[in-house]
């Protein structure tokens, strides 16, 4: 268990981080998935009393990661937005300030299904339908692509461990031969339970620390 874990993926060396991020040193790129910015704001607009503050925290977590790895590129694997942000939302005030602080980093994202709600919102991010990086194909949905190892998000994978009456549910990195999925980065995002006996390997994230999952 530790906050970072060195990992081999499709022949490349990567570093997993307990803040639910993956760093690819060869290309100096930090990857996260499913930030879902603006989710709490949408919930508030619809009458659910969810306090604000997650956007600020999530950006702060990103800042810490950027300070730690000092990457040239930050790429979000889709669902950067949860919903189209409306004026007056905290995120729209916070993001430009945050962006200015990290202006040296190239900020990019692949388009996720939620991002389509927010088409045309200008934040200084480069958008891609998908993107190739080393042996990897970066995309939102975890569909295999011939000749490349897909790194994706979308699923928000979590794993439930059960030993006798003790249950523990945690977000996971999910690695398979052709497709790997990152845990969701956003604080208010839920999870999709990996079915028992899913193929591949998992790394659990518990309280910011990483644990290799059972085979």
């Amino acid at each position, binding site marked *: *268990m530790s906050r970072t874990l060195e990992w081999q993926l499709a022949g490349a060396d990567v570093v997993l981080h307990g803040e639910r991020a993956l760093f690819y040193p060869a290309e100096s790129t930090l990857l996260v998935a499913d930030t879902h910015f603006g989710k709490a*704001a*949408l919930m*508030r607009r*619809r009458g659910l009393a969810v306090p*604000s503050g997650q956007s600020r925290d999530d950006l702060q977590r990103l800042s810490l990661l950027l300070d730690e790895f000092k990457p040239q590129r930050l790429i979000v694997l889709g669902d950067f937005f949860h919903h189209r942000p409306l004026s*007056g939302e905290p995120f729209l005030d916070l993001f430009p300030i945050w962006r200015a602080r990290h202006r040296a980093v190239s900020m990019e994202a692949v388009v996720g299904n939620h991002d389509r709600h927010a088409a045309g919102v200008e934040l200084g991010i480069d958008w891609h339908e998908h993107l190739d990086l080393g042996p990897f194909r970066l995309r939102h949905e975890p569909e295999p692509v011939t000749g490349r190892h897909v790194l994706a998000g979308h699923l928000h994978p979590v794993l439930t461990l059960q030993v006798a*009456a*003790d249950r523990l549910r945690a977000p996971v990195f999910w690695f398979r031969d052709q497709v790997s999925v990152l845990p969701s980065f956003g604080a208010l995002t839920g999870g999709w339970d990996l*079915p028992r006996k899913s193929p591949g390997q998992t790394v659990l994230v518990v309280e910011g620390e990483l644990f290799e999952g059972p085979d």
Partner: protein
Amino acid sequence: MAAKPVAAKSAGDGLALIETWFAAQGWTPAPFQRQAWQAFRAGRSGLIHASTGSGKTLAAWLGPVSAALEKPARTGGLRVLWITPLRALASDTAGHLQQAVDSLGLDWAVETRTGDTTASVRARQRRKLPEALVTTPESLSVLLSYRNAEESFRHLDAVVVDEWHELLGNKRGVQLQLCLAWLRARQPKLSVWGLSATLGNLDEAMSVLLGEGAAPGERIAGAQSKPITIRGLCPANVERFPWAGHLGLSQLEGVLDYLGEGKTALLFTNTRSQAELWFEAIIKARLEWVTELGLHHGSIDRKVRRRIEEGLRQGDFRCVVCTSSLDLGVDFSPVDRVVQIGSPKGVARLMQRAGRSGHQPGAASEILCVPSHALELVEIAAVRRAWEAGRVEARRPLRLSLDVLVQHLVTLAAGPGFVPEQALAELRSTHAFAELDETLFNWCLVFITRGGPVLEHYPQFQRVVVQDGRYTVEDTGIARRHRLAIGTITSDAQIQVRFMKGGSLGSIEETFIARLKPGDVFLFSGRALELVKVRDLVAYVRLAKTKRHSVPRWYGGRLPLSSELADSVLAIFEEVQAGQYKDAEVAAIAPVLELQKQQSALPGRNRLLIERCTSREGHHLFIYPFAGRLAHEGLAALLAWRLGQIMPATFSLSVNDYGLELLTSTTFPEMTDADWHALLDPEDLLDHVLAALNAGELARRQFRDIARVSGLVFQGFPGRGKSDRQLQASSGLLYDTLKRYDPEHRLLAQASREVLEDQLEIQRLRSVLEHAAGQQLVLVSLERFSPLAFPLWVERQRNRISTEGWRERVQRMMDSLEKHAARKPGRHP
């Protein structure tokens, strides 16, 4: 009830008409029925308590009917509201009520309004309600959430709350209290009548129903309840009798013989999984009964359940295996046998079940109790003693359930709207919110209008808006989602179970299905089913060909032993300690009890037994307060924590209804009587329990229901479209979010309070400790586990609770899973 209608004579004497009608059927009203009718006509409210099948329904119904018979020509509209806790009962009840008025020649329509009511009927009822409506607390609340609510209830004369004892102690009861307060404020002459089974606190039950400051109500006792016989099935050979864990199946032969002698039996189990296992076992043993056996529990499809209920009424079944799903409701007169499997847990509960038999003329009620381990035989004798002495459990009403309160306020805002001063007065007229102070009330108003007191934390929030001092919901989307949420107070995330070829089997907890993969086989609805796939909250299955299967574990089977029953058990132990065996059931396990006496001692009401033992596993400490498993959980954690202050150690804990076990690898220090009393000191109980337990984690789980009821999360519904699904978030994440950004949030405090009061029964825990101060401590060192200790050891093999931190916990779980995988290659945990 094929009777000639008694023509509604001109404004005559309604009660006389009813007497004539009774006579025409060849019946005589029971004295309590007449008493109830007269009390109603005198404008009183009150509570009628009697066993099922004694005529409570007509006692409550014919009062209002007699008044209507005298003034039949009044304008239409709702006159009587009939509240039932189970929507499955609504249509039966409505049928009975309709039959009575038809037969009396009163031109009233009796309809139902529940979650099952179709959209077209709902729309019609929104325009105009029938004269009498049978509904649930949730559906009543939904009716208040429409703009025209005040108009709908303008002519209401009476509210009857059926099975009030089922609602009294829970949040649905609180919701109903709030609705009643609203109705009463608009209709000061409203009569409210409750129907209840026997309870330990009937006076309190009545005053909660009638509200604070109401005129004194009338408590009416029903006909003398018929005698009930409680008999334990004593095993032929007690030495070979299992200690625990076989769900009583070793007694199958005895049960089959008993069923064979009767015509129609109900076989009650404590959990749904136990019901599935018993159903399967009976079929295997008696193939010739296959068409005469039924299975009935809360997860079985409603249509199937209705068919079984109908069959029971017709006498088509030899035996129906069921859970608390058949505790309530109309009587099945052919039932002549009732069997209870496992601990009765409480006096009132067993009596309710026993009362399901013996409705044939001249018959008595009998219940056969089948113990699932030896010591439960003592519980059976103990129930009988307690019942004969009139000691029945009370159900304590809840207070200040803020989640229900904010839901109700939004309901009113979505409906006709409310003005705070008036609303506060109404709320304080309920028992649940009599002590609601202005600070708390204002917090609720802020919560529903601005999200929370820190405005900057809730930008763009709007749910309820204030216009000219009136609180209303303007956004139709918010009102619609709120109505959907009202109806789901009690439901958990459920997955439909369907055959591939069509045909629904019922619904099952999502958490169970999530652990299966396609191809896995499980036992459900009396069949071995193979999971094919899960899509959109539906699990598709087919009949399995293999025999190996798992049984779903449903939650909710953790009812603790009641203190009335526990006391009664201890009283019997005291007699045994003195060498007396007065009950056949207790005598049957004399060898076990004598062994306990010889190796150790028997606990009593004034003797707290503490046993110590060393085994290969480590050092064991067993304590037997007999306070029920919930209180024992808290106590075990507390003792482990306090011992941890004296000696650094990690403990494994195990509890059951009788006692608790602490296991550690470190030797326990030598302790004097004074040391023990210090360990069991009630001082600082709350602080120590909170420190001992991962109280935060427990509260986080408890928050799930609170978040749903208060409208903090929206669950979404299958087929309701993407836009709603985008709003879903887990209550756990929300709990963390609130804890961090709005730590003073009142609903967080409520979650902690509910954990202490409901999950840990802190009051009961406190009384164990206070009692211990004056108790004689019996300290025994054991060579090997005593008969009382053994079930705790078994329990620990099934469950694992320990005092380790989360890091060790994750590591240990991983190791355990790895070991398991290594031992059985190719098989996953």
